[in-house]
């Protein structure tokens, strides 16, 4: 029983990282209406900047905040240089452009920081034992960071004027423009938000594993799966789907082994989409 509890906790933590990346994807998908393949490499870039910043300032928290700011700047730069020009085009054109942006970011990161692996120098700590279950203190810290990030995204989306405008654009872009909402300001805010969420996801991933230029790209597929499962454009859905897939994946390992556990999350995605095509949290949309 404790074995399953520990598997659940492990899956929960993996799921939170994937969920945050899925959150960044779903924000862009909902408002800019295309799948952003540069999310992964924004994660990588954020992790590297946070690493350098924490080495310079000596504090991981400040490093992470600077990483989040760098991610926001990167998102706005990508919008200004690439995606603004492609605003009216099909989502495929935007997707391909985002893949190009991803390669560009990865190349710059690789040239600047090198291809050898790097790590956050966090102290190694022994776990707490609660009811016979091992709980890592680092995991709790990361969960708190994820909760704060989610809360911040929510406050921005639901309690600020720019968030209201973002939701309006997500709901119906034409109507929003007619109502006098300036698209470029909303987009800048959106890309800054998505960029900083990607960076935070990247920093968390970097803290749990190692930092290499390819790390973010490898996270893209699970993050996309979680974004689709949660319903496109639903922030809570993205995080919940990420956690769901992560926990189901890990808890299935005693039955399917470690090589096929990745397949389990896609089987779950398949089943849910067959039964409920709009994802877990979205409303079914029709066109007349």
């Amino acid at each position: 029983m404790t074995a399953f509890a520990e598997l659940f906790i492990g899956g929960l933590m993996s799921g939170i990282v994937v969920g945050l990346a899925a959150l960044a994807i779903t924000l862009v998908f909902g408002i800019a209406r295309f799948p952003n393949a540069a999310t992964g490499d924004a994660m990588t870039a954020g992790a590297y900047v946070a690493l350098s910043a924490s080495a310079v300032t000596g504090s991981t928290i400040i490093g992470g905040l600077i990483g989040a700011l760098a991610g926001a700047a990167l998102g706005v730069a990508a919008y200004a240089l690439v995606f603004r020009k492609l605003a009216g085009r099909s989502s495929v054109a935007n997707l391909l452009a985002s893949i190009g942006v991803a390669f560009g970011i990865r190349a710059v990161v690789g040239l600047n920081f090198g291809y050898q692996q790097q790590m956050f120098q966090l102290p190694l700590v022994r776990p707490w034992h609660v009811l016979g279950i091992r709980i890592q203190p680092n995991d709790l810290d990361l969960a708190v960071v994820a909760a704060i990030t989610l809360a911040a995204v929510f406050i921005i989306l639901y309690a600020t004027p720019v968030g209201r405008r973002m939701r309006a654009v997500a709901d119906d872009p034409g109507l929003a423009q007619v109502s006098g909402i300036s698209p470029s300001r909303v987009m800048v805010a959106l890309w800054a938000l998505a960029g900083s969420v990607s960076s935070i996801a990247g920093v968390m991933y970097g803290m749990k594993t190692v930092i290499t230029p390819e790390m973010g790209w490898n996270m893209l597929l699970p993050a996309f799966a979680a974004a689709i499962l949660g319903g496109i454009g639903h922030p809570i859905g993205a995080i919940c789907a990420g956690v769901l897939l992560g926990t189901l994946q890990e808890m299935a390992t005693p039955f399917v082994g470690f090589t096929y556990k990745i397949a389990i999350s896609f089987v779950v995605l398949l089943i849910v989409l067959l039964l409920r095509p709009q994802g877990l949290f979205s409303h079914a949309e029709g066109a007349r």
Partner: protein
Amino acid sequence: MMNRRQLLATMTSATLLASTRDGWAQTTSVFRIAAFNPITGAGAPYGAGMQKIILAAVDEVNAAGGAGGRKIEVLPEDTQTDPQAAVLAAKKLIEINNVQALVGIWSSGVTLATIPLANDANILLMCTSGAPEITTSKINAKRLVYRFNTTGDGFGKAIAEACAQEGFKRPATMAYNNASALGIVEGFRKNWEQKGGKVVGAVVYEPNQPSYRSELQKVLAAKPDVIVMGSYLPDTTIILREWYQTGETQKWILAGQAAGPDLVKAIGLEASDGLFVVNSITNERSTAFSRYDAAYRKAMDQPGIANIYAAMAWDMVTVLALAMEAAGPNANPSAISAKIREIANPPGKQVSSFAEGKEALKSGKVNYDGASSSLDFNNLGDASADFELSVISKGGLSRKYVVKL
């Protein structure tokens, strides 16, 4: 002003003209090889050193007057330690650059993926990969593939010997899901069971996971006293960090490709203390090794012993050049391959460099004694080496003893 038909004709003839340029280059005496190394990816700790040493070795060969009447030209490429990316790069090297040898492939996945391309083009392939399948008669049917390292099987055997000597009774294994790591772990299991022992737990894990806690949990549940792992540096870092944070106390035996100064830097002095590392050793006392060491220090500002794969890469160029010299002018890769065992194996005058061997070939056979091993290839293209068991203590690797197979 040209009309459309004239434009089309001009463009076609210009393209045809441009494509024949490469063909004209073939008739001048240059032997083109590709330095096909892992500059990025899991092999990145070794790839840059391998590539630089290949360039240095080729410079030496050309300075001695070339081999078989030809100068060697090197095209450096990155395999990214990824089979998909490497196949694309290999296709470009073979079809567009017309290389006649792929030299210095590190990863088993990349080697297994590019062997069909090399065989179809009838060119040589020299690798340091461990997967046992590489030198089977089915895959190496044309005998154009040479492995300058020991197979994973041999690795596993050495680990089993070390395990027995250290007195472990309950080993468990963890393996990265690819040919090389599985080869090492399978080799260990086979040899351990031959000694009458039992492997208490076995886990195979996938790359690029956010966490390896569940894999670790399964291995630890079997209560092993030592864990034998076939892995690479990034996943080893993550797994050992997570293991240390569980508070468990068993020992680890790691393959040399994953453990070294980089691992110590990554997980720190405390977590790395007491880790066992089994690695193939270079031919340390040979003259060829000291020549390689000097070249490596010049190119990378580090001792040659830090990168045993670079020693193998150095030998690859020397062996290729000596075989080209022995095969005579304008020999194709198959003819060169036929000479490789002749110049690398006994009988013959023992030589330690290309210049020495070129001179000695004028009066009889040679036997190249390499920097990485004595390089006595069997008929399937395998060289063999000895192993060492080292222990990481206080951040440094120190040899405990040599394991002879």
